[in-house]
């Protein structure tokens, strides 16, 4: 091919060579492919998070910009009985719901891992509570727990077991336990299906070997299933704890944080203060206060449950 503009071609060629070298480089190419995802994360995750943290240090009101006030919002929240109660509620809600979700989920996964009739159908059905939008299932629970229309109370009264309707959401402790029950109902399928996936990756030959050695079913579970399942458990429970800790919809539909703020979680209180109450700065501070707890949960599962080196990608 005849070249007339040698100078220009030389630079063009150089650029082309550089680009092709760059595209051959796995790291550079990887970076390039990550760019769109990275930009999205930056725009829709990092920026809002950063903004939230910043707002937590200001006295911004909804509809009015704010000035830097340092730790004032946090001091305010620390001295606020309702905020402290919401912290207790959140921890109680998360711990109780997560433990039960784990136990029930594991149990369900073990059952589903056996040869049950209509296996696929049953597995699909199990997922249903997780698929239904929370707002909808929460409304169903709202009716189930209703002080006047509760189907549970109605059934028990008809059976003659109780003589007055149960005050599911009107008594502080009943309300806490009722919201936890609704959360468990919704969360178990997620845990169960993920653990089931984990169970199915365990090779049957381990169980054969174990039974040849005369291991009881309990020993098989304790020394084969559980150790091989820990990595999945770690991931699933981290997610489960995160979801539970930041729950909002269920509480908002069922109780709005009542009665007497007994079911106010940090997320719902943060919303109440920030949006209807207009104190954006304070609400943001409350939301940011959740971060250390969430980080702790992640670190715990990372270091506590993935102790073995091979589970972290190294050799055992």
């Amino acid at each position, binding site marked *: 091919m005849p070249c007339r503009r040698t100078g220009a071609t030389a630079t063009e060629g150089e650029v082309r060579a550089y680009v092709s070298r760059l595209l051959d480089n796995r790291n550079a190419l990887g970076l390039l492919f990550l760019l769109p995802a990275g930009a999205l994360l930056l725009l829709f995750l990092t920026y809002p998070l950063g903004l939230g943290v910043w707002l937590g240090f200001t006295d911004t009101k*909804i509809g*009015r910009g704010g000035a830097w006030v340092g730790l004032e919002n946090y001091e305010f929240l620390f001295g606020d*009985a309702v905020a402290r109660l919401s912290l207790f509620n959140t921890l109680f809600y998360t711990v109780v719901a997560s433990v039960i979700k784990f136990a029930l989920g594991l149990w369900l996964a073990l059952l589903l891992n056996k040869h049950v009739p209509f296996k696929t159908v049953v597995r699909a059905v199990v997922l249903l509570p997780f698929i239904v939008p929370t707002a909808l299932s929460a409304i169903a629970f709202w009716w189930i727990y209703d002080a006047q229309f509760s189907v549970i109370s109605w059934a028990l009264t008809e059976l003659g077991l109780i003589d007055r309707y149960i*005050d599911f*959401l*009107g008594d502080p402790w009943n309300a806490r336990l009722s919201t936890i029950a609704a959360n468990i109902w919704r969360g178990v399928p997620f845990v169960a299906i993920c653990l089931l996936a984990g169970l199915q990756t365990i090779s049957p030959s381990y169980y054969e070997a174990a039974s040849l050695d005369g291991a009881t079913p309990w020993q098989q579970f304790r020394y084969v299933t559980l150790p091989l399942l820990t990595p999945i458990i770690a991931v699933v429970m981290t997610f489960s704890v995160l979801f539970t800790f930041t729950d909002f919809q269920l509480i908002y539909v069922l109780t709005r944080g*009542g009665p*007497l703020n007994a079911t106010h979680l940090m997320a719902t209180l943060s919303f109440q203060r920030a949006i209807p109450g207009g104190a954006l700065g304070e609400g943001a501070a409350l939301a940011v206060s959740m971060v250390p707890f969430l980080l702790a949960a992640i670190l715990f599962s990372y270091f506590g449950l993935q102790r073995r080196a091979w589970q972290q990608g190294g050799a055992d």
Partner: protein
Amino acid sequence: MKNMKRRDFLKTSAGVAAVAAGPFIWVKDASAQWSNTPEKGAKLRVLRWKRFVAGDEDQYLANVKKFTEKTGIEVRVDSEGWEDVRPKAAVAANTGAGPDIILSTHDDANLYPEKLVDVTDLANYLGKKYGGWYPVGEAYLRPNGKNWIGIPLGCAGNCVVYRESQMKAAGFNAFPRDTDGFLKLMRALKEKGTPGGFALGNATGDGNVWTHWLLWSHGGQLVDKDNKVIINSPQTIKALEYAKELYQTFVPGTLSWLDPNNNKAFLDGQCSVTANGISVYYAAKTSKDPKLVEMAADIQHANMPIGPAGVPTELNLFFNQMIFKHSKYPKAAKEFIRFMMEEEQFGPWMQASIGYVTQPLVAYEKNPIWTVDPKHTPYRDAMKIMRPIGYAGRLGYASAGAAADFIVVNMVAEAASGSKTPAEAAERAQKRAERYYKV
């Protein structure tokens, strides 16, 4: 089917309006002058709260259509759940973009008065023409006593809704006018196995409305004129002791009640007395279910009883209309609000919603909707006898924050349920409120 019924109902109410047509009784002030030329090519966006009764929205939109036909100004109306309008309005104020006109609630306009178009001229014109504004409208929207920052739309009146037959069965011929008699009635109803109930959960509407009445009826108040928190007072404690007695008579579960619960329980016949807008009656009256229609005949309304304070002390959900400075067509916006507030539009609108919204202008008391069915009448005075939220202080972020945080509702619920003594509950409310009203 339900629709059919509503239509039938609308027809009847239109008929009623026609019978009562002809000039209303007051003499219009001839000196009320209005001249305003909307901008050429103006278009308006209006954001309002979603209807509580169907007739409201149908007639509102019919009025909007009429406005467009008359002026050629296009108007787009969006509606949102009433609790969602507040944050949206605040964002519009903050960012300087969004609807030209927003219909919102309570003290919203007081959060960003500098972002709102001064509507003093319009308020003066309407006030002069229609017998003046009720004082509470001024308390909300004329904060400095001179300039109007919005035009009152009215309020969702709140009354005692009760079952007449059950009251009579409990030995009362008329609904008691004072708090002592009210407590006696509630006790008698409980004894008869037909108790009443009021929302004590975090119910933004119903919870705030009746607990503020209770507090004020005994002379307690959150703050004084200078925004000094004075809720921990002997009057408040009296109110809370009363609440404790009253709570003993409630149907079970009121601590969990949110805004819809009392409507549901009442319409199911499980609650003989509650406090609500006219929507319970509207639902029963326009229902297709013969049982509910029968109940409608038995439903009666009364204003909230008067307590030791000696005067009516009601809180109702106040509605405002704000024009934002970011609007490109402020004159068209003013014209729109004027048009909607004029008798020709406002009257039929009140009728279509059987008085769900009580008028802000005195002259509209004469609207036949208040007398066509005596059961409507108590709602007529809702604006006249109500106090602004955050009474007796200035309105703004503190009053909005304190109400949104359910300080009064929680205080009453704590004392009523016995989880705190009245003294403890009042002290706690004082501490919580002081945090909002700190300078």
